[in-house]
């Protein structure tokens, strides 16, 4: 099945639980707005969309990878050029790409979010992978 809109929707990661619900993660551009956002679709066991949401800031936000957490939620991480000074996109301020980390609940609500900024780094900082540790925390690695 094809999912998305009339723009550019790129599927990247998915997770399926023991009940057969599958959550699809990717990014979207010009299907539902002018800026690139993280795009999440939840399918029920019959593969029918239950809900779909975009997540982002004032500018380009893209997904690198996703970790399913033991509380049923997800840790999303990728790159952001947004400023997050306002939830509105109309001003579209932006800055250099920085790693963005977003924790979602099982229902898709944002629980917390972080930006990683190494001011002394000449090269762009990127996150490549993450895992949940035995104590419930998360370790993320990058360059």
């Amino acid at each position, binding site marked *: 099945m094809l*999912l998305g809109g009339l723009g550019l929707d790129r599927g*990247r990661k998915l997770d399926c639980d023991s009940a057969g619900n599958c959550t699809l993660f990717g990014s979207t551009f010009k299907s539902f707005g002018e800026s690139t956002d993280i795009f999440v679709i939840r399918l029920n066991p019959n593969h029918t969309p239950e809900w779909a949401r975009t997540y982002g800031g004032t500018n380009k936000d893209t997904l690198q990878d996703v970790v399913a957490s033991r509380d049923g939620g997800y840790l999303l991480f990728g790159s952001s050029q947004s400023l997050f000074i306002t939830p509105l996109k109309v001003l579209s301020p932006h800055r250099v790409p920085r790693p963005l980390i977003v924790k979602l609940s099982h229902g898709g609500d944002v629980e917390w979010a972080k930006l990683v900024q190494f001011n002394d780094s000449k090269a762009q900082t990127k996150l490549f992978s993450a895992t949940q540790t035995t104590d419930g925390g998360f370790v993320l690695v990058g360059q």
Partner: protein
Amino acid sequence: MFALKLVADGKPIWLHRYHMDTYYGNATTVTSLKDGQIDIAGGYFNDMDEGGFLVMTLSPDGLPMHVTEYPRPLTPLGSAILSPIGMGVLDNGQTVIAGAYKLKDKPESAYVLWFDQKGMFKNGHIYSLRNAVDTPVTVGSFTIRREVGATNRIALVGNSGAVGVVRAMNEPGDQAIALLIDEQGNVSSEVSVRASGTQSTNHSNSEYDDIAPLQDGSFALLGTTDGFGAPIVNFIFSVWTPHDNTSALFNVFSIDVQAAPVPVPAVSGDTDRIENVPASKIDVTELKVSNLEHP
């Protein structure tokens, strides 16, 4: 390369950078071990195109306990570059690393390496697409997503050039592939799909980008396509039910790699560089989506 630890509520606990003398490093995949330790795999290289990949075991505090480097293995086809893409731990404690395999002046292929419970190299295989002249064709974006159950089979997905014709990625005729690999490294089941339509390939379609097991033994697959009736580019979601078959697409080569322990000191970083973003500042938009597939 660096590693960052956050607790469950997002508070940063530690941040470490890891330096290798004369080499650049990047940590491309990480997995958590049962005892709280952390395994990281990545690549290292220098300006003279030398390097290899490394596996680093960290303590729960993020300090290197042991680091092993694996210079480029010499295969019957030449010296190889192995780039880790995915890593996981099997039920039997073995660590499996999957990634992209590159020979000089030849297209990319895929590999899987097995390590025993002590982190020692056990065996490795290269999976190259079979074609008329028996050389690899382009394969990329392999992901390891399953290391479970009695069979301990590993599912990989990726995209390749058309069999028999060496192509650049994303050209018309490329196909997505998914395969199951058994404990001996043999391909026990495989599936491929070639996008329909003749649209321009500027959109980088890759129909199988990720794979997840379903309870009935099948797998869910997610990717991106400009075929199958997509208006421009959309998510493509499909389900694969593997049936054991002898691989028709793949040549399988065994490889050996030499290992050497290396010192990689950690330098603690400032966790103040982790900036909080209020959840209210993340714009969340509810959408209505439905299957766009043409009947």
